[in-house]
C-alpha cells in the first residue's frame, strides 16, 4: 500500500474542528512510528504539529502499535497542514531499488572485512547481500510477514554467500555466510529500544527489544538452514 493511501481520511471524521486537528497530528506520529523514531522525538514532533494547528494542550500516549492523542482548542490552517502532510508522504524522495541494493551490498562487504573475511570472500558477500536486499524488497512489497521474510532472505543470502566464497576459494566461508545476512540485523530498533526505556517509555522499549530478539532468531534459522544445505552437499564450513 502506498504511504499516501494510509492517511486517515478527513471525511470520516465528523464533529468539531478539534478532531481533524488531532487526526493530522496523529498521522504525523504514525509516520514517525513506522520509521522507527524514538518515543521522545515522536512526542516532540507531534506536540509541535498540534501546537502549530493551534492546540493549547497536547497529550500523547505512545504504545508499540498504537498512538492516542488528546488535544485542547484553537483551530488554525488544518487544511493547509493536511495538504502539506499528504505532500510529504507522496513527495519524500526514495532511493531506487538498485541504489539501495548496491549500498546494502557494499555495507555487508565492509562488515565482512570488519569480521575478517579474506578478500576473495568479500566479492561473494557483496553479491549475496545485494541479491538478499532485492529479494527482501520484493517480499515486503508483497506484504510477506517480516519475520518469515527475514528467514527467507537470510537463507538465500547465506547460501549464495557461502557458495560464492567456496568457489572463490575463500578460507572464511562461515564468516562470509554470516556477513551476507547482516543486512537483516535490526540495528536501529535495538538501539532505540534502549533509548526509549531510558527516556521513560519502558513498554514501547521492551516491545521493541522483544521484536529485535525474535527477528534475530528468525534470521539465525535461515542461516542455519543454509549451513545444513551447504554441508549436505559436502562443502566444508
Amino acid at each position, binding site marked *: 500500500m502506498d504511504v499516501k493511501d494510509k492517511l486517515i481520511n478527513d471525511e470520516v471524521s465528523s464533529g468539531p474542528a478539534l478532531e481533524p486537528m488531532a487526526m493530522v497530528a496523529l498521522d504525523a506520529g504514525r509516520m514517525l512510528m513506522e520509521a522507527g523514531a524514538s518515543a521522545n522525538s515522536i512526542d*516532540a514532533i507531534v506536540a509541535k504539529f498540534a501546537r502549530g494547528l493551534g492546540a493549547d494542550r497536547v497529550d500523547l500516549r505512545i504504545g508499540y502499535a498504537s498512538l492516542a492523542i488528546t488535544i485542547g482548542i484553537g483551530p488554525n490552517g488544518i487544511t493547509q497542514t493536511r495538504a502539506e502532510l499528504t505532500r510529504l508522504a507522496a513527495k519524500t524522495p526514495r532511493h531506487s531499488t538498485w541504489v539501495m541494493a548496491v*549500498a546494502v551490498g557494499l*555495507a555487508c562487504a565492509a*562488515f565482512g572485512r570488519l569480521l575478517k573475511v579474506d578478500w576473495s570472500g568479500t566479492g561473494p558477500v557483496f553479491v549475496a547481500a545485494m541479491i538478499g536486499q532485492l529479494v527482501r524488497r520484493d517480499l515486503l512489497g508483497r506484504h510477506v510477514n517480516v519475520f518469515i521474510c527475514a528467514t527467507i532472505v537470510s537463507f538465500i543470502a547465506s547460501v549464495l554467500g557461502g557458495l560464492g566464497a567456496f568457489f572463490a576459494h575463500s578460507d572464511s566461508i562461515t564468516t562470509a555466510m554470516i556477513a551476507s545476512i547482516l*543486512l537483516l*540485523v535490526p540495528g536501529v530498533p535495538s*538501539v532505540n529500544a*534502549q533509548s526509549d526505556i*531510558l527516556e521513560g517509555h519502558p513498554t514501547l522499549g521492551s516491545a521493541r527489544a522483544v521484536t529485535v530478539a525474535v527477528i*534475530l532468531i528468525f534470521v539465525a534459522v535461515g542461516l542455519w538452514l543454509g549451513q545444513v544445505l551447504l554441508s549436505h552437499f559436502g562443502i566444508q564450513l
Partner: protein
Amino acid sequence: MTFAFLLHQTICGALAAVGFGVLFNIGFRSLPWCAASGALALAVRTCCYSQYHWNLEASSFAAALIVGAAVQILRTRADISQNALDVVGCIPMVPGSFAAKAILGLFALTSIDTAHATETLVTAVQYTLRVMFTIGAIGTGLAIPSLLLRVRVSR
C-alpha cells in the same frame, strides 16, 4: 596496531554506515555525514580495542559516547535528524555476527552428539552475553550525550 589497519577499519565503518544510511532513505547530501559518523565510531573502537586492549564492550561504549557527543555538538550543521545520524554511525558496531553465532550455538546443543555439550553451551552463552552487553554499551553510550546535551523541547 598499524596505521594501515586503523585506516582499513575506519573505511569499512564509513562504508557500512553509508550503506545503511541509504537503506534508511537518508538523502545523498547527508551521506557524507553518515560516513563521518561510522568512520569516527570504528576509529575510536579500533583504537581502544587494538591499541589499548580494552574489551569489545568498553571499546563500543567509548565509541558510542564519542559519536553521540560529536553528533550533539555538530547537529545544527547536518541537515538530518540527530537520532538517525548517531544511530547510523553505531550500526557497524552492532554485533550481528555474534548474535548469529550465539543462536546457532544454541541450535547445536540440541544435536545428538553431546560430547562437547558443555563447551558448546558456554560458548553460546558467552556470545549471547557479549551481544547483550555490547548492544547495551552502544545504547547507553548514545543516550548519555543526548540526555545531557539535548535542548529540551518545551511542551
